[in-house]
C-alpha cells in the first residue's frame, strides 16, 4: 500500500519536472516576445496599445505566454514551498495559496487579453 502511494508520488513528481522543463523551453522565445511587445508599447497611448494587443496573432502569443508562465511558476513555487515551508498546516496552506494565485493571475490575464481581442 505504502509502495503504491509512493510510486504515485514519484510519477507526479516526474510529470511536474517534465512540465516545468518543457514550459521553460517554450518560455525562451515567449519571454523574449513579451519583452519586445512591452518595449514596443512602453509609453504609447491607449489606442496604440489596444491596436497591438487586439491583433489576433499578438493576442494568441500573449495567451500562450500566460499559459506557459503559469504552468511553469506553479511547479517552481511548489518546489520552493517543499524546501522552506514545513509543518503540515502551513505547508498545505502555502501550496493551496500557490494554486489559487496561479489560477487567478492566469484567468485574469487571459480574460483581459480576450476582452481586448473580441471586445465583449
Amino acid at each position, binding site marked *: 500500500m505504502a509502495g503504491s502511494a509512493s510510486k504515485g508520488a514519484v510519477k507526479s513528481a516526474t510529470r511536474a519536472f517534465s512540465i516545468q522543463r518543457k514550459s521553460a523551453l517554450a518560455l525562451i522565445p515567449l519571454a523574449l516576445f513579451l519583452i519586445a511587445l512591452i*518595449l514596443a508599447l512602453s509609453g504609447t497611448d491607449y489606442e496604440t*496599445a489596444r491596436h497591438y494587443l487586439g491583433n489576433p496573432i499578438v493576442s494568441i502569443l500573449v495567451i500562450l505566454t500566460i499559459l506557459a508562465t503559469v504552468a511553469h511558476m506553479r511547479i517552481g513555487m511548489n518546489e*520552493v514551498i517543499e524546501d522552506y515551508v514545513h509543518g503540515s498546516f502551513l505547508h498545505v496552506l502555502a501550496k493551496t495559496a500557490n494554486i489559487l494565485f496561479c489560477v487567478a*493571475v492566469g484567468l485574469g490575464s487571459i480574460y483581459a487579453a480576450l476582452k481586448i481581442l473580441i471586445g465583449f
Partner: protein
Amino acid sequence: MAETRQAARPLSPHLQIYRFTITMAMSIIHRITGVGLYAGTLLLAAWLVSVAMGPDAYASFQSIAGSWLGQLILFGFTWALLHHLFSGIRYLMWDNIRAFELRQADFISWGAAVLGFVAAIIVWVVAFKLRGVL
C-alpha cells in the same frame, strides 16, 4: 541505539567554510529571480486588465508605471526575467548532460549572469530611445 548513532559520524563542514562559487551563487539567484517573477506576473496582469478596462484605467497604470519607483520595479522585472532566462538555459543544457565539466560550468554561469545584465541594459536603452528620452 542513540549512542551508536552519535558516535564517530563526520560533521558536515560549517557553512562559513564553503568557498564562493559562481554556480552556487547562480542557483540562489535563479531561485530569487523565479520568486520575484512570480510576484511580477501581477504587474503583467494589471497591465492587460488596464488596457481591457479602457483609457482611464490605462492612464492610471501608466502614471504608476512611469513614476520613478515604477520604473525601478520594471527595470528589476526586466533584469530578473532576462537573468532567469539565460540562467535557466543552463539547466536545460545540463539536463542533457552538456557542459557539466567544472570549468565549463563556471564559464557558462558567468556568461549567463553577464548576458542577463547586459540584455536588461540594452532593453532599457532602447526603451528610452523609443520614448525620445535618450
